[in-house]
C-alpha cells in the first residue's frame, strides 16, 4: 500500500505524522519504505536519523548545438514552450536553466544539429533507519525543477519488496506535490485547526479529488477550534481519522527531534489503528 501524506499548508505536521506512522507500523513488524519527496527541504531524516548508504545523481537533459550543422532555421526555438533557445541569423543560444528537458528541440531539428547534454540537478539518497528503508531526494540549491527528482525516486518503487510505502510530500498543491502523491492508494491530509489550515486543506482536498484518490484527515494541534476542520470534512464527506492534541509534551519532543510514538507507546497503537481503518476503508489496499 502506498500512502501519501500531504497538507496544502506548510508546517501542519506532515513529516511528524509520516514519521510516527512509519515507526508505529515498523514497530508492529510491518516492512516499511519511507520516501521523503520534499526534495527542496528533505527533513524527515532529522527524526528518523537514517544511515545513508547510496547517493545517486539525478540529471536532466538540455540541448547542445552542433554549430557546424545548424542552419539557424529556428524550428527548435519556435517549438520550445519555455524559451530555452534563441535563434537569429548566424546565432543560436541556449539557456539551460529554462530547459525542462522535454527533448522536443532534438526531434524537430531537421539538420540533426541538437544533441542532449546532461546536467545534474540533485541526488537521490538511500539507506536505512533501523528496520525502515529510507529514501530521500535532494534538489541542488537554485535549481527550479523538483519534479524530475521525485520522479526518479518513485521510479524505484517498481522493484520494492516492502508492503507499505509512506510518502512524505512537500507543502502546496503544485506539480512537485502531484508528482509525489499520484499513483498512491490513499492520501492522508494533515491539517491544523486554523483558518490557514482550513483554507489550504480545501485546496489539497480538491487536488486529491482531481487525482481520484481516497483520503482522510489528521488534525494536528487539535483543540477548541476543531470545528473549523470538521465542518469542511462533513461538507466534503472526508473522514477525520485522527486528532493529535495541542500538547506541550508532544511539541517539546518534536523540538529535540524525537518522534513522540517512540517514547509514548500509546501513540504507536493509535497510528496502528488508523492504518487498520485506512486499510479496511480503502478498496485498493492490499
Amino acid at each position, binding site marked *: 500500500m502506498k500512502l501519501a501524506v500531504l497538507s496544502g499548508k506548510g508546517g501542519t505536521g506532515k513529516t511528524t505524522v509520516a514519521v510516527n506512522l512509519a515507526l508505529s507500523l515498523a514497530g508492529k513488524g510491518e516492512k516499511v519504505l519511507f520516501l521523503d519527496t520534499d526534495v527542496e527541504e528533505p527533513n524527515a531524516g532529522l527524526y528518523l536519523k537514517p544511515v545513508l548508504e547510496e547517493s545517486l545523481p539525478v540529471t536532466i537533459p538540455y540541448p547542445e548545438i552542433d554549430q557546424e550543422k545548424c542552419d539557424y532555421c529556428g524550428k527548435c526555438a519556435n517549438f520550445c514552450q519555455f*524559451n*530555452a533557445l534563441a535563434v*537569429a*541569423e548566424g*546565432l543560436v*543560444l541556449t*539557456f539551460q536553466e*529554462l530547459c525542462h528537458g522535454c527533448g522536443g528541440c532534438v526531434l524537430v531539428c531537421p539538420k540533426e544539429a541538437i544533441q542532449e547534454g546532461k546536467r545534474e540537478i540533485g541526488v537521490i539518497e538511500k539507506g536505512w533507519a533501523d528496520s525502515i528503508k529510507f529514501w530521500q531526494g535532494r534538489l541542488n540549491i537554485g535549481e527550479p525543477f523538483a519534479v524530475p527528482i521525485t520522479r526518479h525516486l518513485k521510479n524505484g518503487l517498481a522493484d520494492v519488496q516492502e508492503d507499505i510505502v509512506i510518502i512524505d510530500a512537500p507543502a502546496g498543491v503544485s506539480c512537485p506535490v502531484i508528482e509525489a502523491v499520484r499513483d498512491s492508494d490513499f492520501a492522508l491530509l494533515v491539517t491544523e485547526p486554523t483558518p490557514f489550515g482550513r483554507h489550504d486543506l480545501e485546496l489539497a482536498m480538491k487536488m486529491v479529488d482531481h487525482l481520484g484518490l481516497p483520503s482522510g484527515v489528521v488534525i494536528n494541534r487539535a483543540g477548541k477550534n476543531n470545528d473549523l476542520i470538521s465542518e469542511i470534512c462533513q461538507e466534503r464527506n472526508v473522514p477525520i481519522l485522527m486528532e493529535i492534541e495541542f500538547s506541550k509534551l508532544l511539541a517539546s519532543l518534536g523540538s529535540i527531534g524525537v518522534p513522540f510514538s517512540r517514547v509514548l507507546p500509546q501513540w504507536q497503537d493509535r497510528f496502528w489503528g488508523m492504518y487498520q481503518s485506512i486499510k479496511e476503508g480503502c478498496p485498493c489496499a492490499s
Partner: protein
Amino acid sequence: MKIGISAAGKDLDALLDPRFGRCPYFLIVDTETKEFEVADNPGNTAGGGAGIKAAQAFLQLGTKELVTGQAGPNAFEVLVKGGVKIYQAPQVKISEVIDLYHSGDLKELTTPGGRGRGSR
C-alpha cells in the same frame, strides 16, 4: 537610421515601455523621417523566458539599435550577441525618445538589469 523602441502603444504619442521583455510593442522608427512600423512583442505573453523570446523577435526585425528602459540578463545576452546596441531612455513619449536620440543624450547600456523585473 532605423531604431527599435520598446513601446506601451502603437504610435509616436505612446510612452516608452521600460520593460524590454514584457513590452507589448516594438516601434521601428526612421529617426530622420519619423516614419515607423509596429511589431508585436511575443515576449509580452510568454510564461517564462520573455526576454529571450523578445530579443529573438527583435533581432528578426533587423534593426541594430534598441532604446528601452532595461533588459534582463538573458535578453541582454541575446541582443548583444546579435550585434544590437542598447540605449537607455526614461519613460517618455516615443516622439521625445527620438529627440533624445538626436541630441545624443541616450546612455548606452553595457550591463543587464535585474532578472524577471518585467513580470506582472
